């Protein structure tokens, strides 16, 4: 016991040292973000002179006001919202239904269909984005929300996650309902879906973040600046920001565009970490 008291004292010191180092590293991690936020709150005239400093002195909201007057950034934001929300709802819809079928129902060709779905996990977006592009342009559907959403709805990983979740639900819950002659749809809607709200929240959050931040497909599918999502729109001003005088405004648009997703993260961060735990499995 005496020995262990000494070692535990030493242990506490090293614990504190590690914690201190971690805090220092975390501050370093945040520095670029704080700097960008500070720049977005400074007048452009000041930024032409110097970009140094982490405090917005002198302070101004002009960059944000100018942004709202421009109308493009709010429009991009709206497209991102429409696309991300629709995509999230559709992913939840198709994944939970298919996941339920794979987890709980018996049907011919189940194994084959399952393998066909799992194989899709191996195909990266980069392998199909060109044929997708020619397909969508054949239908004349570029620059539509439909084209931005649909190719990214059938994600095998979503089905996989929902299937894993439904498998963990005790069978007895369903059997009781089946004896009462409830249809599969009733069982699914009244029993399974309410139980799976945590799983659906997690899948939904990840889908939303993915949809919001996706770059390659919106970049090739939305060719008109009017139809850009906020990620693509920001990239389009970024390539020539060096020549523009509106550095403060560019920084403001980056902050403005990130606000919804950061808010979502702060509200739901518990679910996000729990969701990773769930998807990692054992």
């Amino acid at each position, binding site marked *: 016991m005496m020995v262990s008291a000494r070692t535990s004292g030493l242990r506490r010191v090293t614990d504190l040292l590690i914690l201190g180092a971690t805090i220092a590293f975390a501050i370093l*991690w945040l520095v670029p973000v704080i700097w960008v936020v500070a720049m977005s709150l400074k007048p452009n005239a000041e930024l032409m002179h110097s970009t140094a400093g982490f405090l917005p002195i002198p302070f101004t909201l002009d960059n944000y006001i100018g942004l709202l007057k421009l109308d493009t950034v709010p429009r991009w934001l709206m497209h991102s919202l429409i696309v991300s929300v629709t995509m999230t709802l559709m992913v939840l819809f198709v994944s939970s239904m298919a996941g339920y079928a794979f987890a709980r*129902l018996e049907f011919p060709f189940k194994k084959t269909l399952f393998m066909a779905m799992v194989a899709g996990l191996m195909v990266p977006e980069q392998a199909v984005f*060109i044929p997708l592009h020619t397909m969508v342009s054949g239908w004349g559907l570029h620059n539509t929300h439909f084209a931005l959403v649909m190719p990214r709805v059938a994600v095998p990983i979503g089905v996989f996650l929902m299937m894993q979740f439904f498998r963990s639900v005790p069978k007895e819950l369903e059997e009781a309902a089946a004896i009462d002659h409830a249809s599969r749809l009733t069982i699914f809607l009244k029993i399974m879906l309410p139980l799976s709200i945590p799983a659906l929240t997690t899948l939904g959050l990840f889908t939303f973040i993915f949809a919001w931040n996706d770059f390659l497909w919106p970049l090739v599918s939305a060719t008109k600046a009017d139809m850009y999502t906020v990620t693509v729109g920001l990239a389009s001003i970024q390539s020539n920001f060096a020549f523009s005088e509106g550095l403060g405004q560019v*920084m403001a648009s980056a902050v403005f565009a990130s606000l919804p997703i950061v808010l979502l993260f702060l509200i739901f961060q518990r679910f996000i970490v729990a969701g990773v735990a769930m998807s990692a499995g054992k």
Partner: protein
Amino acid sequence: MSANSLKAAHRRDVLAAYLFLAPFAVIYATFLVYPFFKGLWISLHDWELAGNYREYIGFLNYEDLWLDAIFWKAVGNTLNFVAMTVPTMTALALVLALAVFGQGRLKGVLRSVFFMSSVFSVSVVTLIWSMVLSADNGLLVPLFNMIGVKPINFLGHPTLAMPSIALTTLWWGVGLPMALFLAALSQIPPELYEAAELDHAGRFTVLKNITLPSIRHTVLLVLVLQIVGQFQIFGQAHLMTQGGPANRTRMLVQYIYETSFRDWQVGYATAMSFGLFILMLGFTMAQLWLGRKGDE
């Protein structure tokens, strides 16, 4: 229940199953399976993005690819980038996870800090880091001035451009693997640690003999996810260096994108994307195989 009604129930289930699967299956077939095979078909053509020019040329695109110096340069750059990011990302994520694992408000805040950068989109991340690394008005310029050295143009520097993109990627992407490690750490049975405590095992011994072996499956998972993810690098290079200086940071996906959407050579670009697909598949398979071998 009689045999007949059981059969009827089963038939109803089969019908229900297909109806439940239908929405996913239709979208999956239309937007993933079909484009995949259509891509293979396109890659056998001399196919232009605009206009109607397309001619069947067999495997000629693949033969051209074999002789394309820029393609191999892009493969080399991508492999270089993967080699720079995957081990460091995995190690950093593991170290951070170990540091922020546990109870307490402070640790919760620290977890959020390291995870938060991964919710930013690629255009925000590259904007931030292009500014940080800029030689004109970058974050480090005052530091260079202080020691009296001319600020380095990181992104325009032939050897520093790639590590700069790797650093940006590390900052952006460490959150998810860190969270995966946190999840794995929380699954380790506390009895193992209690036993180690009784033996007065040191911190390092515990890490080596208990923690690391317990999470080896997650390490493998993170490595596979990282390899697949980093092979697809596009935005960072496209937005920060445009592949420069002198093709030093030209990545595979970027070359595919330019070939199809700047040069309009869709057939050739599709052949290239299947090259990427096979490369990624090979690496993932090798990884999984090695991991399984290590388990035996």
